[in-house]
């Protein structure tokens, strides 16, 4: 799955899901390349705000399911004081739906 993240959250070792090209077309980093301290510094200097990275590739289906279950439990906990409100229950369901869609790569990247 591909995820777009702010540059300051990018870490060395993450894998680029898309090539990084400067405004004038010069290729700065190839798709599939591993991010290094040097590449990150360069992107920061050139005012890049986000990078697209590969995530979840190291996550087994069991780990994915465990993470989703935890995130669903977190959502549930936030709604605990408004559980009887039918409108907010729809909001909660929309959030859960989103979570599942993103995890299965059918949502927006």
């Amino acid at each position, binding site marked *: 799955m591909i995820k777009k993240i702010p540059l300051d959250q990018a870490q060395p070792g993450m894998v680029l899901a898309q090539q990084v090209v400067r405004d004038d077309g010069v290729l700065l980093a190839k798709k599939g390349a591993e991010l290094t301290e040097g590449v990150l510094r360069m992107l920061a200097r050139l005012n890049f705000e986000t990078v697209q990275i590969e995530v979840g590739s190291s996550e087994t289906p069991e780990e994915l399911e465990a993470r989703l279950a935890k995130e669903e439990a977190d*959502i549930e906990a936030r709604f605990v004081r408004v559980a009887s409100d039918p409108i*907010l229950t729809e909001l909660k369901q929309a959030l859960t739906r989103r979570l599942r869609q993103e995890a299965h790569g059918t949502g927006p990247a």
Partner: protein
Amino acid sequence: MEPAQLKRNIQRIRNLPTLPPIVAKIGKLVESPTTSSADVARVIAQDQVLSAKILRMANSPFFGMSRKISSVTQALVILGFNVIKGLVLTTSVFEMIQHSIVGLWEHSLGAAAAARVIAARVGEAEVEEVSVAGLLHDLGKVVLTVQLEPEVRDQIFKLVEDKKISFMEAEQELLGFTHAQVGLWLAEHWKLPETLAEPMTYHHHPERARLAPLQTAIVHLADIVIRARGFGYGGDPYVPPLSGEAWKLLGLSTKDFDAILEDIEPGLMNLADYT
């Protein structure tokens, strides 16, 4: 709480933080009907750091401008006096926000992003102004936590945790008043327009807004949506109750939630660069 202690708490908070003189100067200028954008821009331009910060905020993703705003005058013309006044205020209290509650700045930015998306969806014309109202909605909480004695502040946090209640309920129980009241004092003290003042004061009770009910209802829902999404921290981990009246006024359907959540996301992603 003993009356003497209550009085002391109120006095501490009512002794409101002084803002840089330039904020008052701009506030006064904006009030006068004969003031032009150029007049205000001239005052702001005297402070280079402030000018740079305003341009940075004006060009940030949550205003979503299609072209770059390159001068303060241009920012004033495009965004309006109230938005610029709100931004000047935000930059002035930014440090205070950082020292109040961990995550409150992110909560404020998130609420601004959500308010923007909801405003556009309900067809409110002043999208930028509502966004700034979202940014400022919890200023009462900022001032309250910064001005109170640290022990009293910690008691509020402890009460939230022990009793599993909202920050506002803990304020009410411990102090006898809440950040909404402080928001009202601030708005009066800083002479904020009602479109910013009422969301600050009534975002938990939007049905009480008289002068800016729609803006207040938008910020009310923005606060709920961003807490539900889980971005930043507003003093407690709970999604606050929805006002039926505000919901009716907004004219949204629950089917809108998917699109609202989707539209907020890009704004949140980029906000990290501006904090």
